[in-house]
């Protein structure tokens, strides 16, 4: 076992502790046990059902878009790829208002349908929940699948072209095996994200029937102060995540090709008008679906940006610090955990690393609060705790990008490295970092963006002078200042996307 792998196992143990200790703390602090309620069956069913459909739709829609982006080069492609990542990091409240502006009762779609004399479509109900989840997660799926596509060595495509592969052959022999390798893991992550969301489900679900497990946890904690129930539901959510993670491990197949020369090569299978039209349509529709809601909301805030008080900008600075620290921590964690995951008995690193997306942020935050209380004033720890929780919660996304790449690295260069006796930091510097720059940059960028936009934990801990940008956004809204709130959202999106872009750029300059 190498040092890296050993570190990876230690990190995995630490993450497992970080997930389970708070849960235990909440259960320990509970006064009496309440058990399940009759309505919990329905809650669980709705949670699973909507998460399943949302994840499946997100991926189905993401595949053509990712493929189009992988085989097309056009001016502004970088911008499209960047902006497509934006919905994922949008604060829920902003995304909901954006979706309502497009698909709502008085939104653009229904106005257009009205001109065409067609009946209105309703965004409220299960369809709204799924629409919002697809809006949030399809970009993530696109990005992760695109990573997979870009990882197909150029030699294979060159070979495919020289053998005269039709698009169907390329798909069957090159792209399908790649998808088999990456999609189950992506499906799992999105499925788990959708099981833990609740503000979306509530706002667009249209009523109590759209209750998810996370909402039941919030209710148990915030309204009933039933900590045993919160812990119980939190445990249910974790078990669900664990079961799903184990299942997806079994489904994931290694792509199983030899190594290439590790250089990007232009796609030679992208000619033909049919494919061109298909790809353009995929990219155009995705842009419309993902960008229109954001543009409609954020443009309302554009005018108010200059009028924002200095405190909002300070909140932005705080968010920036949180984002950078979390990105650093997650990337380091994910790097060693990915090494552990590719080594012997590495399955648990992958399972634990995926599990944290199924952890209820509310239970995690509350548990940490209970754990910190005897030791320090938790309020003084607001920002470090925010960094910590975000670092853990972003881990699954980072691992999703890193593990397949690390596996390929191990398979393609492992023997060579071993025969050269290359290990330790020399291996990291000469082999790992150059090959993994792209997924590492992606992981760091995504974590930074997510952490910048996170509201969950800071709301439990903060004092007014520690507010981060998302918290300020909610404060502005709570004080009737909707315009200012949208301006703050604009800054938040710019900040998150800026971070994402910077980290990604660092990664992309490695190769292609």
């Amino acid at each position, binding site marked *: 076992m190498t040092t890296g792998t050993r570190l990876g196992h230690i990190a995995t143990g630490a993450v497992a502790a970080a997930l389970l200790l708070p849960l235990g703390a909440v259960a320990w*602090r509970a006064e009496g046990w309440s058990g399940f309620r009759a309505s919990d069956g329905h809650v669980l069913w709705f949670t699973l059902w909507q998460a399943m459909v949302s994840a499946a739709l997100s991926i189905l829609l993401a595949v053509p878009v990712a493929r189009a982006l992988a085989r097309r080069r056009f001016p502004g492609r970088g911008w499209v790829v960047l902006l497509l990542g934006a919905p994922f990091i949008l604060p829920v409240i902003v995304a909901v208002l954006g979706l309502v502006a497009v698909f709502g009762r008085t939104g653009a779609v229904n106005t257009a349908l009205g001109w065409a004399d067609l009946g209105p479509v309703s965004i409220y109900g299960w369809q709204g929940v799924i629409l919002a989840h697809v809006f949030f997660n399809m970009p993530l799926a696109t990005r992760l699948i695109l990573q997979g596509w870009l990882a197909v060595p150029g030699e294979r495509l060159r070979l495919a072209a020289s053998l005269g592969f039709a698009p169907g052959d390329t798909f069957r022999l090159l792209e399908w095996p790649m998808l088999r390798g990456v999609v189950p893991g992506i499906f799992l992550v999105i499925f788990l994200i959708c099981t833990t969301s609740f503000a979306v489900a*509530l706002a667009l679900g249209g009523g109590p029937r759209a209750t998810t497990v996370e909402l039941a946890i919030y209710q148990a904690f915030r309204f009933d102060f039933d900590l045993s129930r919160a812990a119980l539901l939190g445990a249910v959510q974790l078990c669900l995540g664990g079961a799903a993670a184990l299942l997806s491990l079994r489904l994931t197949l290694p792509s199983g090709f030899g190594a290439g020369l590790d250089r990007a090569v232009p796609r030679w299978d992208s000619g033909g008008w049919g494919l061109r039209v298909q790809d353009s349509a995929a990219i155009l529709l995705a842009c419309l679906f993902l960008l229109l809601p954001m543009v409609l909301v954020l443009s309302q805030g554009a005018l108010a940006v200059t009028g924002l008080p200095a405190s909002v900008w300070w909140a932005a600075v705080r968010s920036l610090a949180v984002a950078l620290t979390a990105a650093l921590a997650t990337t380091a964690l994910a790097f060693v955990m990915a090494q552990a995951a590719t080594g012997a008995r590495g399955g648990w690193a992958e399972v634990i690393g995926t599990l944290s997306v199924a952890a209820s942020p509310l239970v995690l935050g509350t548990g940490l609060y209970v754990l910190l209380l005897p030791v320090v004033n938790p309020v003084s720890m607001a920002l470090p705790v925010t960094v910590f929780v975000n670092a853990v919660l972003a881990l699954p996304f980072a691992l999703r990008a890193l593990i397949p790449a690390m596996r390929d690295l191990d398979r393609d260069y492992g023997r060579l490295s071993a025969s050269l006796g290359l290990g330790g930091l020399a291996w990291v510097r000469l082999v790992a970092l150059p090959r993994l720059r792209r997924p590492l940059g992606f992981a760091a960028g995504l974590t930074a963006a997510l952490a910048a936009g996170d509201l969950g934990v800071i709301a439990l801990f903060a004092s007014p002078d520690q507010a981060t940008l998302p918290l300020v956004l909610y404060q502005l809204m709570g004080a009737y200042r909707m315009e200012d709130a949208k301006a703050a959202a604009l800054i938040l999106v710019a900040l998150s996307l800026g971070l994402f872009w910077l980290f990604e750029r660092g990664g992309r300059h490695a190769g292609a």
Partner: protein
Amino acid sequence: MRSTITIAAGLTLIGTAVAAEPLTVYAPDYFASEWGPGPAIKAAFEASCSCEIDYVTGDVLPRLRLEGERTRADVVIGLNTDDAERARATGLFAPHNVDTMGLTMPVDWEDDVFLPFNWGHTAFVYDTTRVDDVPDSFRDLVDNHPDLTLAIQDPRTSVSGLAMALWMHRVFGEEATDAWAALAPRIVTVTKGWSESYGMFTDGEVEMVLSYTTSPAYHLIAEDDDTKKAAIFPEGHYVMVETAGQLARTDQPDLAQAFMDFILSEEFQSIIPEGNWSLPAKLPPERMPEGFAALAMPEVALIYDSAEAEALRDTVIAEFEAGMAAR
């Protein structure tokens, strides 16, 4: 990882550079934020003594219960009457020791632990440019107006949502579930908190939103917009009273009591109308800002005292769930 710890430690310092032994006041986010009444109240109180107020924000009651005897709070502000019973049950609070004579509230006040500082009626707010046929009673809203769309807050996650459920129970009694079922097709969405609903309303997605009779004052005074109005129902409007309490185990009992005494002072109370956009608990009408005089106010104020509200909580939430499910 070491650099992470260093940075994290640095971040901690940003938040803790405060002088010794301030008065720790737990307050909801909207109260203590820059855009709430908190900062002005802090400045006014600190001017009267050589002391300092330190706000701690978040969900006040869950935090208090989580901390129990360990709490660092000296005073808690922003507890709703509908939540007060649970706060009382913690046994952490001491009497407020403040004379409540001369309150300008439509309901009697006998609680000697929780001191009211502001109040407001729950109401449905609409835009006069979009709604012509305004319901003239709660019964009228429930029975007629099939095209009037509503956004409300979930009684299981929000205090204003709970207030509406209690309001429905008070007005419709045994028929509350039926009334919810009659409203359900028009309730476009149920949101986690007030902000999401109100945002949908100002964006034009719904015609009416569950808010307060004082909401139009914000638009009138801050935005010079007189198109937002609250529909007034003769059956009466449920009143939400926000209160403050002092902790029995505070290490600064004198300072805590001084703050409690400050709450009903004119200086504190005159910050409330335009600070919290609600009605002060004790302020003569002539001291109210101009815009508030123009507000339509209900003649009947409905409220359950904190013990009744606590006893009814499960009932009214069951009514909401049953009525909405029948949709």
